[in-house]
């Protein structure tokens, strides 16, 4: 095939760790054609990134390519000397990484960093060099490129940094661009901008892109062809249309089913039981068999080959005995073993509020000079009001930097609010100090985003779970009296067993350390820790954003069932609108420290009133049923959405905070912050488009 750009066959990359090597990539074949976007999808730990790094031979010291070859055009990459390989990197294959903040050198100007790449790949006169840098930055949509080239990375926002990374990748004019989760660290609106940019560049240059992602939405809007990776192997390859119309491998299907959305409301999400198997041992059958609902004895006997689904569709191949040997996949209607049916819909909407927050403000002073005089304030939270009723979930939605996490911590009094009131069942928490506040600590708890940072690695799970019990004495005894210590120990032991059972972990987990658990299990431990003191309200700070789709489904199901069992209320802080749709009852959308729209889930997500909410919704890459639609067609609202970025909370724009990014901004928007307009009894929006008050 003449249009093949990169052909990888039999690639095996192993990581050398004790006690046995991890077969991160275990024999994959793939072929990337000129000018196409080839997406590799899969959960973390499936070997996606290792594949990309193997192609560039940029593996960490402990990893090694043990077999296979990779042909780029006529060049055999794995046989080049390191010196020749350096010419391939950047010039023929370039890579952009996940985290733009750490990919740029903070002490060099952006222009200098682009220049470094140019210098490596050709001689240019200083003037020509200068022109080329500006041209490249211009190409990736950096406004005022002439001036911005002389600025340092800290003067750029996250999205702009990722654009600079793309410019650096383009500097060598590569044939293949490897993008390893290029937008995972970015907000949805910025993500849409970067994806648009990649699409545009590909159209203009006819470059191939190897896109590595876990987000099926991005795949749907970007890829020409898709490969699904599981446990170091490719289990399915297909064109985008074929893949989204009829995914064949049970794993691919599960990935679709585990996506939260409105359909799942009231019920439970499909989950893939268990987790990706450890890649230390050799496999004797299908690698997915242990987690597959359709596995039968044949699956354990020899790994199925990657075979075409049907004789006429050579482009769609799958590694599953059902498809390739029986010729047909079992019906989809077979019930999922793990789901527990309906999980309830929470308490009625008109229940009495448990938590009332009024005009909550958190301002961080910026101090300068010798005497540390306060020169300005970061208005992280600037007057938010919300109510949460018992047994209900309020989702607080917004981009990163809008102050939603600070708001959560201020409600918990982990950060003392500057002004406003937090009223929990009649008690004014902002006025309480020391012991009096400790009395309310058991009522409100928090679950954090990163399950790796939220558990002390030096403490055993049992100690982690009992910490709250010891500190707050919830086990029913005063812990500081020596006489009841033994009694208390038994009570604590019982409670820890109970908690582990509640979150679906085995009892022996308490004697182990956090590092022995996977991300999902760790998040279960974090949930159990919060539950230990029998809270009424849990602040969930993006509890699933660090997790894979299938694990996210498990955690969301758990949270939902705990709510219906224990009547918990959640303040669910997230940027993921799909999760909101699945879990929340009410939604509040935050922008730059203020709530700009709030209402029930149906009101806000079905008929968004504020232009920002509309923009957020439009920017989410959707897996459309109509898979043949033009890629990247966003519609006018989406285009409006993708303009600009979140301004700094130090210099908030005058008038409506959103007006610099708003397509329908009028004069009054620039002058004054809009008051609240009540659309329905529960739906309130702050925008000049609607009559104020009512």
């Amino acid at each position, binding site marked *: 095939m003449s249009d093949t750009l990169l052909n990888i066959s039999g690639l095996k990359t192993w990581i050398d760790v004790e006690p046995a090597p991890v077969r991160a990539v275990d024999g994959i074949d793939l072929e990337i054609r000129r000018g196409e976007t080839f997406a590799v999808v899969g959960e973390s730990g499936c070997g996606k990134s290792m594949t990309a790094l193997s192609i560039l031979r940029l593996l960490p*010291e402990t990893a090694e390519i043990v077999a296979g070859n990779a042909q780029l055009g006529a060049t055999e990459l794995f046989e080049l000397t390191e010196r020749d390989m350096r010419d391939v990197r950047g010039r023929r294959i370039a890579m952009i990484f996940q985290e733009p903040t750490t990919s740029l050198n903070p002490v060099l100007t952006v222009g200098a960093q682009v220049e470094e790449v140019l210098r490596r790949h050709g001689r240019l006169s200083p003037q020509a060099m200068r022109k080329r840098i500006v041209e490249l930055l211009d190409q990736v949509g950096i406004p005022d490129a002439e001036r911005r080239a002389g600025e340092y990375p800290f003067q750029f926002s996250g999205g702009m940094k990722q654009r600079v990374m793309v410019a650096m990748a383009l500097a060598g004019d590569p044939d293949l661009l490897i993008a390893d989760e290029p937008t995972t660290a970015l907000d949805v609106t910025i993500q849409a901008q970067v994806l648009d940019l990649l699409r545009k560049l590909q159209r203009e240059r006819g470059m191939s892109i190897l896109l590595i992602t876990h987000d099926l939405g991005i795949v749907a809007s970007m890829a020409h062809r898709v490969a699904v990776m599981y446990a170091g192997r490719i289990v399915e390859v297909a064109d985008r249309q074929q893949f989204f119309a009829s995914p064949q491998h049970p794993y691919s299907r599960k990935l679709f089913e585990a996506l939260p959305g409105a359909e799942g409301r009231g019920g439970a999400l499909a989950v893939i039981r268990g987790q990706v198997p450890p890649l230390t041992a050799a496999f004797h059958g299908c690698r997915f068999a242990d987690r597959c609902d359709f596995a039968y004895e044949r699956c354990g006997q020899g790994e199925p080959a990657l075979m075409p689904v049907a004789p006429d569709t050579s482009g769609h191949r799958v590694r599953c005995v059902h498809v390739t040997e029986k010729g047909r996949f079992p019906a989809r209607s077979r019930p999922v073993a793990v789901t527990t049916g309906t999980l309830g819909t929470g308490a009625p909407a008109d229940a009495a509020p448990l938590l009332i927050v009024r005009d909550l403000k958190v301002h961080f002073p910026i101090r300068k000079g010798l005497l540390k005089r306060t020169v300005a304030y970061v208005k992280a939270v600037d007057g938010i009001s919300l109510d949460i009723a018992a047994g209900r979930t309020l989702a607080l939605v917004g981009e990163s930097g809008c102050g939603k996490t600070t708001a959560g911590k201020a409600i918990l009094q*982990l950060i003392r609010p500057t002004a406003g009131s937090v009223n929990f069942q009649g008690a004014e928490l902002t006025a309480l100090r020391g012991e009096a506040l400790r009395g309310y600590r058991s009522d409100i708890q928090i679950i954090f985003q990163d399950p790796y940072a939220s558990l002390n690695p030096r403490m055993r799970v049992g100690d982690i779970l009992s910490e709250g019990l010891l500190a707050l004495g919830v086990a029913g005894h005063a812990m500081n009296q020596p006489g009841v210590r033994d009694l208390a120990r038994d009570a604590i032991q019982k409670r820890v067993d109970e908690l582990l059972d509640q979150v679906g972990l085995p009892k022996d987990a308490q004697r182990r350390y956090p590092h022995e658990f996977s991300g999902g299990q760790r998040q279960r431990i974090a949930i159990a820790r919060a539950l230990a003191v029998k809270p009424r309200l849990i602040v969930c700070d993006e509890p699933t954003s660090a997790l894979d789709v299938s694990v996210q489904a498990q955690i969301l199901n758990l949270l939902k069932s705990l709510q219906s069992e224990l009547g918990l209320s959640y303040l669910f802080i997230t940027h993921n609108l799909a999760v909101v749709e699945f879990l929340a009852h009410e939604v509040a959308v935050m922008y730059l420290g203020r709530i700009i729209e709030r209402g029930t889930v149906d009101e806000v997500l079905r008929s968004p009133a504020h232009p920002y909410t509309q923009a957020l919704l439009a920017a989410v890459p959707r897996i459309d049923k109509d898979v043949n639609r033009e890629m990247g067609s966003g519609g006018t609202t989406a285009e409006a959405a993708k303009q600009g970025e979140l301004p700094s909370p130090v210099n908030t724009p005058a008038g409506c905070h959103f007006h610099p990014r708003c397509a329908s901004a009028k004069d009054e928007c620039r002058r004054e912050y809009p008051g609240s307009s009540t659309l329905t009894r529960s739906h309130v929006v702050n925008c000049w488009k609607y009559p104020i008050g009512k």
Partner: protein
Amino acid sequence: MFLPIILWTDALIFVLLAVIAAFAFYARQHEHLRAPWRRVAQTPAAVSAAVVLLAFVAVGFLDSLHFRQAIEPAGNAEAKRPAGAATAYAPEVKSVLDVALAHLSSRTERTYSAPLATHAYAKETMEVPGRGQVRDYPRLRNGGAHLKDAETEWGWDILLTVFKGMGLALFAWSIAAFLLLIAVKPTAPAYASIGAFSDAVWRGKTVVPWRTVLITLGLIFLIVVPATLLARGYHVLGTDKVGQDVLFLSLKSIRTALVIGTLTTLVMLPFAVLFGIMAGYFCGWIDDIIQYLYTTLNSIPGVLLIAAAVLVLQVQMEASPELFPTTAQRADFRLLFLCIILGVTSWTGLCRLLRGEALKLRELEYVQAAQAFGVSHWNIMLRHILPNVMHIVLISVVMDFSGLVLAEAVLSYVGVGVDPSMISFGTMINAARLEMGREPMVWWSLASAFMFMLVLVLAANLFADAVRDAFDPRVRVSPRNRHMAEAAAA
């Protein structure tokens, strides 16, 4: 018979050894602590260094068991002593090492003599019966005294002793090796017999590199045993100005070096850990005060501060001699004080590191979760922050050790180090200042101090390196997996 004396530094050494033993016991039961130490034990350079260090520690420990000998009245002691009278003890405090090396310390010469010499280093005028006054190199009192005709027998005697010593060393080594192998033989079925195990050791196939241990041990034996035999008749490393055996001085210096290296850390740790964690955890004005403190302390030249403190102490000690019944006790107190003042001036580096780490840790979510439970600040620091900075403490303690040993030498050279009556590498080097200026040059004092310090500090550095690597998850410490290649081939 004798009265055990526990000097201040002895007590602290015993405490330190007990703490290390307790930590080892604790680490055995905690996988996250045991795993890195296991990696250390699998590094050949580290185990080799550890063997050398242990040999030094053994010498230092023997030198820390102090006592005063009872004075036996002349003649029949039991008969003459009045019943019930308190036993009188010698004013001199001795250590077990002193007793073991009595033949070295007691047999002094009049002045300098070269290593293994039989004659003095400088010509003297002496009366020779029958020849009147002659100017020649006089025979030494003890060096080679057993030789009748020094000129002809000397070479052969030394060669013979060395060979005898080597033979004896090999014999002793094989016994020691056999006992060691029996002691450490794993219960795994692959090593059912001692033969299978020793075969594995020989081919270097064991997890812990026992072969390296045995080789290092063998080298130590090959040096120590011949040297011991030679020392019976000669001064192996020569004698110093007042005729003291340099080998004896070097061995006595080891304890001083170890005490300075370890006890200073012990003094420094509470400051560094407490202040560092407090500064990082509380931030605000507590951080300001602590930072101000260590910045100020850091900007005073260390040697000046130490010199001032030592000089003040010296005056105080001379003003109240009744506090120190023996010179050893006085010297020991000064050594302890030196450790304290070195510790007080050297905690800033570690403190700064720990402050930075605590600043990072306090923002971590598990600390915030603990705050959400209302756990007290003290408990958060103790349970959440301290265990997570322990690796930094451990690494810097091991790294600091060698620096402190060298610092002692420098300070003694400047004259503000240990008590002049105390033997240390620093005082030896200080004395060498004049010896190097002589013609012909007296080189052996400096060379001995240099060699002993080199071996000690090198072993400590190699060991510290391995410890640092083992606690750094990004560095691969173990040799490349053999099964990786084997599995790939399959």
